[in-house]
């Protein structure tokens, strides 16, 4: 099983995440897309650490940090979505024009 398979899967996930970020206007969907991007990055890290330096534990430690940071990011993002819904009664980011100059 070559490393390239994992990298191609990771880049497919990255493309999906980009597509979600560009095409979707619902804030919740954009958060899902960001989660998919995070998955792609983590998969890349684990694959590289397993294949390139199998005796080094640093890559996995980095992924643990990344997972914890992802949890913090999801919490703050969801709080922002709740606030957005409470203030504007919508989660559609194209409707948020209050800051538009």
């Amino acid at each position: 099983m070559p490393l390239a398979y994992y990298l191609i899967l990771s880049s497919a996930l990255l493309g999906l995440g980009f597509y979600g970020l560009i095409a979707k206007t619902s804030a919740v969907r954009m958060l899902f897309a960001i989660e998919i991007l995070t998955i792609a990055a983590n998969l890349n890290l684990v694959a590289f650490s397993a294949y390139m330096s199998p005796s080094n534990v640093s890559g996995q430690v980095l992924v643990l940090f990344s997972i914890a940071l992802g949890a913090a990011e999801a919490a703050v993002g969801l709080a922002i979505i709740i606030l957005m819904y409470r203030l504007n009664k919508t989660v559609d980011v194209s409707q948020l024009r209050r800051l538009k100059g």
Partner: protein
Amino acid sequence: MVFFMVDPADLSFLLLASVTILSALVALEAKELVYAAMALAVTFAATAGLFMLLGAFYVAFFQLAIRTGAVMVLILFVVMLIRRGAREAVGTRVWAIIASIAFFVVTAWIIMIVGSLWFSPQSLSTFSVTELGTSLLVSYGVALVILAIILIMAATGTLTLIKEEKE
């Protein structure tokens, strides 16, 4: 036939990879937001399976516990709180599809070119929890403390954000 000699690891990789891609697609495209959230949970779980396939059992456990567990519960709560019916604009959609497919083709092409330099490893090594924890606390102790501070700041910021102001 070639199919009789398929390695079980290859087969499980193909299964997990297709489940990951399909459930990520469903997570982005499902009409109902709750179904999308469940599909995202499936994506997280399948990625944990891929981590296990790569020999990173502890990371896979963390992915299952934090992502599939805690983050999904948070997301489901928010989805329940938000009234549905937020219709989504379809203006830039074709261009988004074209752009992301082009991105994927270009990166896959580059990986195919460069990837011929990388061969499969002799053996995937799995680390024990003790090794990982020692490295986490000894080599990366400062980073761990900074991460703890970031988590506390995120929790405080979340509470401050969604606090109801009494006028």
